[in-house]
C-alpha cells in the first residue's frame, strides 16, 4: 500500500444552515493524481481550500503527511494551489511571480535565481522573465502559475479548475502537459473540476462528489465501466437507463424483463439477484449494435428517429416500444438504416451495468 499524503477524517463543512460537505473520509496517496469531480456547488472547492488552509472545516481533521494541520495557517502547510484564472500578481514580472514563494520562505537570492531558471525551463517560458502577466496569453499565464505553484516543491499541488478559462484546443494540450509534468515530478496532484472529460483523461483516481458525500471513488475505468450508483452512471459519460425486473436466475446469468420491450428478455451477469428484484439496466450508447430484424439475440426492438453527425462518430436517437428515448453511437462509416425503420439493437451481456434498488 502506498503512503497516505493527505487524509480527511470525518470532514464536514456547513455554511450557516447549509451542509456543503457531510462527514466524508478521503485518503490521497503519495504521487497520485486524484480528481474531485462534481457539479458546481458540490463542495469540491471547499475541500481544496480546507487542505490549503484558506478555509477551515466545520468538523473533522485534515492531515498532511501524517501531521494534523487542521488549525494551521496556509503558510505553515507544504501545499500550494493553482487558482482559477491563475491569480498572478498583476504588477510583478513573470520572474517575480515565480520567485514569490521562495522569497516568503527567505531563501537566499542566488538559490532563488537558480530555481526560478529551472522552473522557467520546466514550463518552457525561458526569455519571458521580465514580462508582466497582462502581456502573456492565457496559456502562458497558466504556465507561470504552474511554475509559481511548484517552485516550493509542495508535497501536494492543489488545482482549482485551472484550465477552465482556456479554449478547448489549448485545454486539451494543457491537460496532457499537466499530466506529464505530474508524472515527471512525482508530486501528488489534487485536481478539482466539473468537467468529466478532464477527470477521465488525467486522473489516477476520481472522487465523484454529490450532495456533500463521495458518491464513488475509483479509477477512471471503473468509474466509467462499473459505476456503483445511478448518479455516477448518469454523471459520467452518456448512458441509457432502463427499468427492469429480474425474472429468472441461471447460474452466473440472470434474465431481466425490461419495461422498454416486454416481449424480449435480456441476459445480464447475476450479481446476487433474486427473482422479482427491481433493477436499472444501464447501457452506454457506444455498446449498442444495430441488427437486422432477423438476427435478434439479447436485443430489443427500436425505431430509428434521428441521425446526428459528429465527425468521427454518428449519434442516433431511437425510441423503444414504450417510447423511451435511446441514445446510440456508431462509428461514422458504419452502414446505417433509414430513419423510421423498426429494427433491433443488441449489446453484450458484459456491457449491461445492472444496479439494484439500493444503488439508486
Amino acid at each position, binding site marked *: 500500500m502506498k503512503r497516505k499524503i493527505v487524509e480527511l477524517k470525518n470532514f464536514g463543512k456547513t455554511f450557516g444552515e447549509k451542509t456543503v460537505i457531510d462527514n466524508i473520509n478521503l485518503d490521497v496517496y503519495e504521487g497520485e493524481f486524484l480528481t474531485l469531480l462534481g457539479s458546481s456547488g458540490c463542495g469540491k472547492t471547499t475541500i481544496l481550500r480546507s487542505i*490549503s*488552509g*484558506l478555509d477551515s472545516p466545520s468538523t473533522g481533521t485534515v492531515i498532511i503527511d501524517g501531521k494534523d494541520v487542521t488549525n494551521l*495557517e*496556509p*503558510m505553515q502547510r507544504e*501545499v*500550494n*494551489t493553482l*487558482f*482559477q*484564472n491563475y*491569480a*498572478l*500578481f*498583476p*504588477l*510583478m514580472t513573470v520572474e517575480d511571480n515565480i520567485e*514569490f*514563494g521562495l522569497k*516568503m*520562505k527567505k531563501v537566499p537570492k542566488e538559490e532563488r535565481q537558480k530555481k526560478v531558471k529551472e522552473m522557467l525551463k520546466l514550463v518552457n517560458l525561458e526569455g519571458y522573465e*521580465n*514580462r*508582466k502577466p497582462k*502581456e502573456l496569453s492565457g496559456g502562458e499565464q497558466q504556465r507561470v502559475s504552474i511554475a*509559481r*505553484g511548484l517552485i*516550493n516543491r509542495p508535497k501536494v499541488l492543489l488545482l482549482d479548475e485551472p484550465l477552465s478559462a482556456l479554449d478547448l484546443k489549448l485545454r486539451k494540450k494543457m491537460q496532457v502537459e499537466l499530466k506529464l509534468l505530474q508524472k515527471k515530478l512525482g508530486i501528488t496532484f489534487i485536481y478539482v473540476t466539473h468537467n468529466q472529460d478532464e477527470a477521465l483523461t488525467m486522473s489516477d483516481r476520481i472522487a465523484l462528489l454529490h450532495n456533500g458525500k463521495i458518491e464513488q471513488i475509483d479509477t477512471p475505468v471503473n468509474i466509467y465501466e462499473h459505476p456503483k450508483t445511478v448518479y455516477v452512471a448518469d454523471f459520467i459519460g452518456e448512458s441509457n437507463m432502463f427499468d427492469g425486473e429480474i425474472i429468472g436466475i441461471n447460474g452466473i446469468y440472470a434474465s431481466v424483463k425490461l419495461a422498454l420491450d416486454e416481449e424480449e428478455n435480456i441476459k445480464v451477469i447475476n450479481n446476487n439477484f433474486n427473482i422479482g428484484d427491481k433493477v436499472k439496466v444501464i447501457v452506454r450508447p457506444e455498446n449498442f449494435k444495430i441488427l437486422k430484424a432477423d438476427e435478434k439475440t439479447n436485443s430489443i426492438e427500436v425505431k430509428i428517429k434521428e441521425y446526428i453527425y459528429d465527425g468521427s462518430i454518428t449519434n442516433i436517437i431511437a425510441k423503444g416500444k414504450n417510447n423511451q428515448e435511446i441514445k446510440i453511437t456508431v462509428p461514422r462509416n458504419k452502414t446505417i438504416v433509414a430513419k423510421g425503420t423498426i429494427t433491433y439493437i443488441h449489446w453484450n451481456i458484459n456491457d449491461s451495468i445492472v444496479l439494484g434498488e439500493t444503488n439508486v
Partner: protein
Amino acid sequence: MKWKNFYIGLVLLFLYLPILVLIIFSFNTSSLNILFEGFTFKWYGELLNNVSLLEALKNTLIVSITSTLISTIIGTISAFALKKYDFKGKKIINQLLYIPIVIPEIVLGIALLSIYTFLHVELGLGTLILSHIAFSLPFVIISVRAVLDNMPSNIEDAAKDLGASNIKTFWNVIVPTIMPGITSGAFLAFTLSLDDVVISYFTAGPGSNTLPLQIYSMIKTGVTPDVNALATLILLAVFLVLGISTILQIRNIKRQVKV
C-alpha cells in the same frame, strides 16, 4: 476641420487666459493689475520679505501634507476593510461615505466649528488638519475602493498560499496592486486641502492662517502683485510635478511596448 481647431483654441484660451494674465502681471512694474508698464522681478523679491504670506504658505503646506498623509493611510485601510470584511451596517457605511462629498462645504464648516466649540477645542493648526482629514477621507476611500474592486480575485489567497503572512500579503501584494488608487486618492486629498477656503475659514484659529485664507483676506486691503508672483511659483511647481509624472508614464508605456 479648420473650425474644429478654432473651437479648440477658443476653449483653451477661455481656460488659460486668466492664468496667462496672472503670470504676466507678476512681472509688472506697476503695483496695480490694470496696465502692464514694464518688466521686473521685483515682486519675487518682495515675496521673500512678505512674512505673513510666507507664514501662510508654511501653514498651508503643513496642513495639506499632514492631512493628506493621514487621510491616505486611514482611507486605504478603511477601503480594504470595507472590501474584505462583511459586517453589520456595511451597506449603510458605504452610503454614508458619499454624504460628506455632496453636502455643501459651508454646512460642513459650520458643523465642524460647532463641534470644536462644543468640545472646547482651541482652533489652530490641529483643528485645521482634523477638518481637512474629515473632508478628504471619503475621496481617498472611494478612489481606493474603485481600484480594489478591479483587483484580480484570488491574488490575496495566492499570496497566502505561497507562504506570505497577512501583513506581507497586504504590503507586498495588495498595496502595490492598488497603488494607482492610493496615489490618485492622495493627490485628490492634497489638492482639495491646498485650496480649501470655506472649511478652513471656519476652523482656522489665530496664527494658523492658510494661503487661500490669507489671499482671500487681502482682497479687503488690496491684493499686492507679490501674490501674483507666489501664484506663478505655485503654478510652476504644479507644472513640474505634472511634467515629471507624464514623462514617467510615457517611459513606462514605451518600455511595455518594447517587450
